[in-house]
């Protein structure tokens, strides 16, 4: 810059305007570097100004010196800001160069699912929780006593036809020279073993245990979820193995009214409050009276269609007041204690609630289907 004239306050004003103009016009890094050399270099404008300060008359020196210092501070601030901008841009450019394509699909083992039947079992368990039910699974290999005899189903009773049974080889189990361990009150050896045909066998075991341990005390509130078996030829809607749920509640003063209300509570909890529930008479040897809860057909809503066989209703479960013979069998006085039992097929229920078209699909374990389920 031309600093030929003697320094004066006015001259410095003019100089400042020129420097401001130069700073504004320095856009690129090269412009800034050139300007830096021009203003702050060894022979730069500010050095020259300080050298020329000696020539300024003494009375004007303080004012001029202050002005030069202000000018220097302004210039230095300008370059500091420019340096900051440059560094930030450099870092940013370097980070951008470290590119990873986040639009590519994520690498994950995926999220698994629990089985639809387990989902239904948990829904039921949650509905029962406030009533204080314990969950008891019970054995799947059973004796005839717990599966039939103790439940008021003697041999040759027509009810045994309803449940074609898988009998397992007891001889093979223990061998000729082995004595079977007596884990139950009834000896195991010498009795027929079978795969339980219903979870009602758990009811028998529960009542026996409660009768022994609590000496006939009540209440007894037990729910049982698990596999049951029927010896039948399989097709889309019949499986030799499927899942059931059953509850039993023994107490003083329980009535049919309580049972029906509890079932309504459960079914409305599962199917929704808008669905209709009705009850029809049924026969089960272990309950008296016996009832069959039904729900209105989800397709025709009670008017009758092909899916429900024209009745408008679908039988969901079986239930009833525990038969006095069953109570007596396990040491309860039927004149003092009453109880009820309720059971349903959770496999079929899971199919209905998940929209699986048939029972077979609940056991095909097709992961494509499980992934797509709601």
């Amino acid at each position, binding site marked *: 810059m031309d600093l030929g004239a003697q320094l004066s306050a006015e001259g410095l004003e003019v100089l400042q305007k020129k420097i401001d103009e130069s700073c504004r016009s320095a856009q690129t890094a090269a412009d800034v570097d050139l300007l830096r050399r021009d203003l702050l270099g060894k022979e730069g404008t500010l050095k020259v100004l300080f050298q020329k300060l000696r020539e300024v008359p003494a009375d004007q020196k303080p004012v001029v010196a202050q002005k030069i210092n202000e000018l220097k501070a302004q210039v230095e601030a300008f370059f500091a800001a420019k340096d900051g901008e440059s560094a930030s841009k450099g870092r940013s450019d370097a980070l951008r160069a470290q590119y990873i394509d986040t639009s590519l699909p994520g690498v994950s083992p995926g999220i698994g699912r629990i089985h639809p039947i387990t989902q239904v079992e948990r829904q039921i368990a949650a509905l029962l929780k406030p*009533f204080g039910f314990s969950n008891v699974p019970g054995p799947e290999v059973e004796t005839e006593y717990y599966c039939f005899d103790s439940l008021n189903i003697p041999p*040759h009773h027509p009810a045994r036809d309803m449940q074609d049974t898988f009998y397992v080889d007891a001889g093979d*189990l223990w061998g000729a020279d082995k004595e079977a361990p007596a884990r139950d009150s009834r000896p195991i050896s010498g009795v027929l073993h079978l795969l339980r045909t219903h979870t009602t066998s758990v009811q028998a075991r529960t009542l026996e245990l409660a009768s022994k341990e609590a000496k006939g005390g009540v209440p007894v509130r037990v729910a049982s979820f698990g596999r049951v078996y029927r010896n039948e030829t399989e097709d889309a809607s019949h499986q030799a193995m499927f899942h059931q749920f059953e509850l039993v509640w023994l107490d003083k003063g329980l009535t049919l009214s309580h049972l*029906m209300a509890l079932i309504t509570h459960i079914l409305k909890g599962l199917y929704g409050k808008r669905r209709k529930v009705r009850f029809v008479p*049924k026969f089960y040897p272990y309950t*008296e009276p016996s009832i069959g809860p039904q729900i209105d057909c989800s397709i025709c809503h009670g008017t009758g269609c092909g899916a429900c066989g024209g009745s408008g209703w679908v039988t969901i479960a079986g239930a009833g007041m525990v*038969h006095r013979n069953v109570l007596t069998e396990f040491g309860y006085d039927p004149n003092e204690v009453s109880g009820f039992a309720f059971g349903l097929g959770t496999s079929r229920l899971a199919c209905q609630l998940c929209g699986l078209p048939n029972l077979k699909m609940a056991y095909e374990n097709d*992961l494509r289907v499980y992934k797509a389920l709601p």
Partner: protein
Amino acid sequence: MKLHVSLLAKCIELPSSVITELRHVLDDLGLEVKDVEGEGASAVFNLETLANRGDHLFALGVARELSARYLSPIKHPSMVPAFQDLKPSLPVRRLTEACSRYALLEVELPKNMVIRPDVRAIMYAAGQSGVAGESNKPAIVDTLNFVQLELGQPMHAFDREKIDGEIIIELTQGKETIEALDGNSYQVPPGAIIIKDRKKIVAVAGVIGCSNSMVSSSTTRVLLESACFDPVHVRKTARAMGLSTDASYAFERGSDVEMVVPALRRVVFLAGGAGGAIKEEAGAHVIGLTIADAPQKERHKIPLSIKEIRNQMNLPRLSDVEIVTRLKHLGFLIEPGVAEGDQFAVVPSWRVWDIRNAEDIVEEVVRCFGLSRVKQELPPLAYEVPEAPALEQLVAKLEPLLLGQGFFEVMTRSYYSAEVAGYLEKVAGKRLPTHVRINNALEKGYSHLKVTNLVHLAELVEENQKHGVRGSRVFEIGRLFSPDFAEKDGYAFEREVISLACAGRWSDNEWRKPESLEQRVQLFRGVLDGLVGAVGQGVSVSESDEPLLHPGVQGSLKSGRSICGHFGLIHPELAALLGLKQPVLYAELEASVLGRVSGERSFELPSDFPSVKRDITLKIPLRDRVGRVERLISEAKLQNLFEVSVADDFRKEGEEFRRATFRLVFQSRERTLSHPEVDAGMEQLLASLKEKHQLELAV
């Protein structure tokens, strides 16, 4: 059971002529209508009746139900007057109490007897007669069958000319063989009720007649048998013979002893006997009647508690008059007791088989009113929520880990075929647990209860792979069965396991390179570490020798000293036998052990003092396991050793050993450790590893 609406209408005025309404009523009474054939008065209901209700198998019985629901009167079918002053027919000897009444009516039939058109129409509609408008059976047989549909009494006709001398009712001592009137030969089991004449068996009581005495369209003189047989005897016999007839179906559910003779009167009426609708000259002529019966027992009386009925229905103001009236419509007699206010319900003869106690009476009344009349009221809530069972608590801990690793819960069958059991035995030999066999499976594939879940899970992941699922990871919580498990848990034959299997890609991204088998083993192991670690106190893997797993790729998972399960690659021989196309990794965790170690888990707050780390690289023989050495270090009882982990594992080309680096972390809970004391411990460890286990530092 088929119920002809027009037949029902003969017994009671129908509550509605609209079939859908009538259907609803029948359903509500426990007579489940499976489907309806035809329309209006000619409609036929296909009913599924309850197993204890023999009286639901005929029109009069159904009419009684409607009568009690609508309090409308029954219309009893016409019949000839009671038989009086008849001479006896053939002598009848009743040698078993399993027959409580036996009546033998000898009748001369008109030549070319024709069946009444109304009977014919109903028999055809009920599927009992072959051709519309033309019976394919002798008219008397159709008539007997018709009366069974009406009144529920099964009957049989013998050709009088083929019966020799007398009728004997007795139980078979040994096995007998008969030629039945259906043209087949049957073995009759010991203990069956049979009907004999002097020379031969002429019928298996309640099941089927024999061809040696059957009537034909030319038969003119018949012996009509009407009887009451014990349901259990008939049932056992029919099952043993593998035969179910309309008669056996009815007798098994209990017949009405008081209907034995009236049914014959109805037959005679329909056959045009005295007072019949067919002209006298064309009608049947009754020749003689023999009745043999047991002394009749007093009918069962049950205390009638109006209070209990009201209580069960939650209707305290239910009218006692209405209750009693409905019971009377069902055929009960109501008798007063000795004490004032006591009442007894006397069970009708057709219900003696299933009405036994007060609850049965409650059931009768509730059904008459309809279950919709019961006023529902929820039972009280519990004050205490019981603790969840151990397995449920365990699953609650493990399930989130499994789902988060992409494992799907599956449910497989509890059994497999003898062929599969054979494969397992071939690979595992005598080390396979003993199978529980199913004796009577209809399906061949269900002959053995599973001792391992490996087969089902391996086949399942293979099947999913075929369906295009690139990576399958599944788990199942279920039971295995064997008498060998008897001592391991509370149940005699079964134990609860958590089984896992995986095959194919771990990451479900097509654009990623698939993991190597070794990587998948490590990923699988990682999941298992997570599962065992979530419930136990640390995880380690020790050598195992599971016969169904690859001998070189398997291990036992331990928490502390407890073996929680095992895992590995399915044995190649078994994979080949099962036709598996891809390597499948499998693990089986013992629920009972995991539950136990979960209960033993303890907790300590972390130390605030700094830790000191030391890395050592050891030479490990190629066939040795890094995990074993890690365990040796852990169990060396070095003072203040807080943690040991594997930091590196590599093999230099040409070297006959691996180099494994272990990181040891020392930390005290009371003070800051000095380097010299840690170094002293390290020297002691290295000396011990070299001396006792021949493990040296790699340089």
